[in-house]
């Protein structure tokens, strides 16, 4: 069977599985729709959170990024896992005890202010939309490369599927399809990684393999890679090129941003008890760590294979996968010196570089580069789709609940019935799917850029407000609103200036304290904390009832069993 036939079969089977799960877990009430009835087991929730969190970027792009950045790629590995420690220790248990449906719910009630609620709704929708269009784009790319359908058709198929289970099942449908999607994506990630680890390093555990010796030369793999990098004029793989302060700031922005992302936080509203919220963060990180500790190993194997396969090789002899990716424009070769050889070299080399390789293709191309069987390639395509679809669904739910619950029920139409609210939730989910699909087919040029900054914005707006809302009884409405506004305006202005207004100035010499726009969210967050604390000292303390509520959410007892509210 050909690669394409395998891909059709495997992708078809997984889609059938998701649809089956979705039909089995339809939502009957708003509580089902928003928080899956609050009855999800911590283990299942951990798995669903892992799938929700690991997007097309984690599955498709991350190992490639690490592969090209070497040590500097650590910002993604630490940044996208360390935030779970903050979630488990500082946020999840208390927000679960608070026991509402959405993040703006907490902000609005804790800060007794419609203004704060509306600011939170706007932030949540903005962050989620920028993120979701990236996912739809990922779906389109996988379809176009592996099934050879146009990107638009791919996005429409993806939209149809998400529409089906998100609109029908709400959080309940999403949760159980995400569990299935986690299983698909982790299997799809590990199988090629293990194969390649056996080929390159002779061990079945990739995490150990990349610290081991190269099966061919007997040299340590990392030493060999550093040697190749040195020869070809790249920076050493294990030490990197970014400034330490910038690495620090980017890592912090990603960690804190993770802990402030609404689609991750609401997952912990779905478990029955506070202690389940704590442990389910732990399970989520275990499931995420399986992929995240494998990724740097894949990065090293892929980098070594790529250099060995293409560097200084005659262009006429390139393997089949090389030509296929050339067709998509993601690999480009330009024979500058006309010698027919591929000079793939770094900035420190004396000869010009002739090859550009898009970072995103490393995971997708890896099985082909290593010459693995056709079904493995099909499996990777299905895994990429699972990662993109599960994240898209989680994000769309945030958008739909922000509209139907926070904007309508808690804002404009407080008298809306349970049935009406459920209908509004379904309609807004449907509209959100269509808008996201449109953004995926026809992305405005800035979407890809903005996705990376969603973290900085979440870090500088939500995170301090949530933390202070729990850990400081004295924090009041004035402090929170001032902090959110200052934090997000500062961060957004810095990013907009360097990315859109004056992109020519986007170099280390012009950055404040040498911190890149990717890392500036850390400074925005610090500003937010400072402003909130200062303003709250000079304005009246929150009402007695709110202070009692803060004491209340610190104690697990009384979170209550899941309650069924029938529509």
């Amino acid at each position, binding site marked *: 069977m050909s690669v394409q036939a395998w891909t059709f079969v495997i992708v078809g089977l997984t889609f059938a599985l998701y649809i089956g799960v979705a039909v089995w877990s339809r939502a009957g009430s708003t509580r089902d729709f928003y928080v899956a009835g609050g009855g999800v087991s911590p283990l299942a929730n951990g798995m669903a959170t892992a799938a929700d969190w690991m997007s097309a970027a984690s599955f498709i792009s991350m190992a490639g990024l690490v592969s090209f950045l070497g040590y500097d790629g*650590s910002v993604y590995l*630490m940044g996208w896992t360390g935030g779970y420690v903050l979630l488990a220790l500082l946020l999840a248990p208390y927000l679960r005890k608070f026991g509402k449906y959405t993040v703006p719910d907490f902000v609005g009630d804790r800060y007794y202010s419609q203004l704060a609620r509306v600011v939170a709704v706007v932030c949540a929708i903005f962050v989620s939309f920028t993120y979701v269009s990236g996912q739809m784009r990922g779906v389109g790319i996988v379809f176009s490369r592996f099934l050879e359908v146009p990107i638009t058709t791919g996005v429409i198929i993806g939209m149809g599927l998400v529409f089906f289970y998100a609109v029908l099942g709400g959080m309940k449908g999403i949760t159980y399809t995400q569990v299935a999607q986690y299983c698909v994506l982790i299997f799809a990630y590990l199988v090629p990684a293990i194969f390649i680890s056996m080929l390159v390093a002779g061990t079945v555990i990739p995490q150990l393999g990349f610290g081991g010796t190269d099966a061919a030369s007997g040299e340590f793999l*990392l030493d060999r890679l550093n040697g190749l990098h040195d020869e070809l004029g790249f920076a050493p793989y294990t*030490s990197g090129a970014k400034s330490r302060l910038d*690495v*620090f700031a980017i890592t912090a922005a990603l960690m804190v941003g993770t802990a402030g992302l609404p689609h991750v936080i609401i997952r912990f509203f779905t478990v029955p008890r506070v202690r389940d919220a*704590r442990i389910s963060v732990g399970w989520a*990180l275990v499931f995420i760590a399986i992929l995240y500790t494998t990724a740097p190993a894949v990065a090293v194997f892929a980098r070594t294979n790529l250099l060995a396969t293409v560097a200084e090789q005659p262009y006429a002899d390139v393997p089949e996968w090389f030509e296929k990716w050339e067709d998509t424009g993601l690999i480009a070769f330009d024979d500058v010196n006309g010698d027919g050889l591929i000079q793939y070299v770094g900035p420190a080399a004396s000869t010009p570089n002739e090859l550009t390789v898009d970072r995103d293709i490393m995971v997708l191309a890896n099985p082909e580069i290593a010459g693995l069987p056709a079904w493995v390639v099909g499996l990777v395509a299905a895994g990429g789709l699972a990662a993109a679809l599960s994240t898209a669904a989680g994000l769309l739910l945030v958008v739909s609940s922000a509209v139907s619950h926070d904007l309508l029920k808690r804002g404009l139409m407080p008298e809306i019935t349970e049935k009406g609210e459920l209908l509004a939730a379904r309609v807004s989910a449907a509209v959100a799917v269509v808008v996201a699909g449109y953004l995926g087919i026809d992305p405005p040029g800035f979407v890809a850029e903005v996705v990376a900054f969603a973290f900085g914005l979440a870090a500088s707006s939500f995170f301090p407000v949530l933390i202070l809302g729990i850990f400081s009884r004295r924090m009041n409405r004035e402090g929170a609103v001032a902090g959110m506004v200052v934090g997000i305006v500062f961060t957004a202005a810095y990013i907009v200036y360097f990315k859109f207004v004056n992109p020519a100035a986007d170099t280390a010499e012009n950055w404040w304290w040498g911190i890149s726009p990717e890392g500036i969210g850390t400074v925005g967050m610090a500003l937010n904390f400072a402003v909130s604390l200062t303003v709250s000292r000079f304005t009246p303390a929150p009402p007695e009832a709110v202070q009692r509520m803060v*004491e209340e959410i610190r104690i697990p*007892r009384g979170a209550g069993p899941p309650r069924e509210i029938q529509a």
Partner: protein
Amino acid sequence: MPIPKPDHDHDTSRQAHRDYWRRNVRLLSGLLVVWFVASYGFGILWVDWLNAVRIPGTGFPLGFWFAQQGSIYVFVALIFLYVWRMNRLDEEYGVSEEGDAS
């Protein structure tokens, strides 16, 4: 919902809750120090210094290993340690949800 236990002395229970909170904050501060040292410390600030050392028998420079592997293992361990300690603390102060769930 369970029937709340008769609360003869409201102030004592409030004081107990504050003690519980203080111990929780102390525990999580300690864990966050470890969290910081394992990632920002070993993985970023002191990475060059640690890279001079290799994990015996492997090709891993120690700092690089912490940045790409070790810190993640530490994160997982920290969360489970916190869960275990907090469940005990909840019981010690009688604020766990065992009663709630039944």
